């Protein structure tokens, strides 16, 4: 089990959320196992991994939309049971098309992002926020996310495109087979793997 060092940036940001030993099984298979990390105010944390790594399950377990088999969440140091998580965390899921008869996939996606950004929650979970967008749109979204993070919101983004993750995230959680294989900023991960100038992609391949 790997844990994350508390995030410190500039004057030191407050830890908002801590995930402790979260696990979820489907039949005999562990979708996520022993996941522990924290997220601080103003931080953009990226959960990166291939399809089937457990990113969506992790986000849904955190949001309380899927019942975790073990583990818990702490909000500002206090336990956050599933029934109360929607007061603290908002989850923007992937693959939701609320107005599929009227709007295109891209427009539905932008609508969901707008809904998430309009909520008052201090922690926003987003599953594949850049999916379906072109380069220019992706850069615009990155700008919006960074601006919101600058105002003190914490973002936890599940991203499978490592290039997008490298562009927007402050820290990374490398997830594969439901387990954390590496955690930290790009610099910390380079130090861990010994790849001094390595890209996130090279680091991911080295650790998984």
């Amino acid at each position: 089990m790997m844990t994350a060092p508390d995030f410190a940036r500039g004057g030191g940001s407050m830890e908002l959320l801590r995930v402790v030993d979260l696990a979820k099984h489907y039949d005999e298979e562990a979708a996520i196992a022993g996941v522990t990390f924290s997220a601080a105010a103003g931080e953009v944390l990226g959960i990166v991994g291939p399809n089937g790594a457990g990113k969506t399950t992790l986000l849904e377990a955190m949001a309380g939309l899927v019942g975790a088999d073990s583990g818990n969440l702490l909000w500002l140091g206090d336990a956050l049971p599933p029934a109360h998580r929607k007061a603290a965390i908002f989850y923007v899921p992937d693959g939701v098309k609320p107005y599929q008869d009227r709007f295109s996939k891209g427009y539905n996606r932008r609508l969901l992002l707008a809904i998430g950004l309009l909520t008052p929650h201090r922690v926003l979970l987003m599953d594949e926020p850049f999916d379906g967008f072109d380069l220019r749109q992706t850069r615009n979204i990155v700008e919006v996310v960074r601006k919101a993070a600058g105002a003190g919101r914490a973002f936890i983004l599940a991203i499978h495109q490592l290039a997008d993750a490298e562009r927007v995230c402050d820290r990374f959680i490398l997830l594969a087979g439901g387990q954390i294989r590496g955690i930290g900023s790009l610099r910390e991960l380079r130090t861990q793997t010994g790849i001094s100038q390595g890209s996130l992609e090279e680091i991911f391949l080295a650790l998984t």
Partner: protein
Amino acid sequence: MYPLLAKELAEILSGRALWTMLLLICPLIGFSFIEAVSLYSEASTAALQSPAAAATLSPLDGILVPTFGSFYVAVTLLFPFVAIRVLGQEKESGALRLLVQLPYRSSTLVLVKLAAILAAWAAASIPVLSTLLIWALLGGHLGASETANLLFGHSLYGLLVGAISLFAATISDSSATAAIVALATTIGSWVLDFTLAGRPGLSAWVAKLSLTQTLQSFEQGLLSAGLVLGMVTVVGGLAALSTVWLPPGTPTRVKFARSVPCVLATIVALGLAAQIGASADVTEDRRNSFSPADQKLLATLRLPLVVTVDLAPEDPRYIDLRRNVLGKLERAMPNVSIVLAGVRQDQAGQSDAYGQVEYVYGGRTDFSRSTSPREILPLLYELAGTKPPAPIQGPEYPGYPLVANANVTLLWFFCGLPLLIALAWWWSRLSPAVKS
């Protein structure tokens, strides 16, 4: 809560199910109404020459019940598809994962969805409500209380079907599965009623649970407190179960555990509602009551009256006795017990006592084979040691014969109303202009 309700109403209006149902029921209700008016006019033609025959013509039986009967069929078969949409669409599109994150309790979400379902039922009732207006324009009479009672009964029935459909949508993965579950319940209820009604014992009790039976009292002009409470209880129970099963993150075993007290509470409440015998006769012709003078005197007879009926429940004589005497006695007297002697119709010929009804009041007993109040009431007064009352002078029910031709309304039900519905559907799909 109002933004949430507005969202739910918009969801229903944006779907095809409600509009399709409206278009389909226009000709169905129109045909039923025109046929009802035609038959009523035929009967009225003969009755116009005879006041006695005219007094038997009631718009409740001749026009309203048959017309609303076709609406009942439409609600049973088509309304589940409308009601399922309030949740089924969100489940299929994934938007449920957003909905449950809103700062509302699951119970609030379910109640708002039920309110939207009731609003959808109100919209679906527009064709049948237009028949009331047309009947009035043709010169027909509408008794306010009996019409309102019938509408109330149908609205409760619509809410019940809606609650069943909402619960089906909550426990099903897809709208198609939910539709199968809901229709299995509503149509299965028809089968229950058809096969078990009129049979004695447990079968009769089970048949009473059929959805079809819920409307019978209202169609007969009775407002039964026990029935209304029972229907509201079932709607409440289904809403509670929907609240338990709605959140996607709760483990299934926890949902089952939480469902048990809901089901038990509903059963207990239903049992209590079944004990409530209070009902009001809201018909204009007072068909469910004795004369005012008899009602007044019977209300003063406070000792228990025990009626033992040696008839099979499916025997037409028992049905007559029930309708003409026993039901009215239960409403008029404060303490009446009716006991069936437990005879089956195939045993009818085996006993000389078959067909006999025993009346016990104040320690005195008498027997009768009559099913008419003209013989039974004097018998009861004699048992009570009191004289029959002097009749209270009041207006007799005149009956409302009307010879009318409703064929011109074919244009309304087959052309005009469907066109309006289609226009409303088109208008509802126009995107609102966004000010820049």
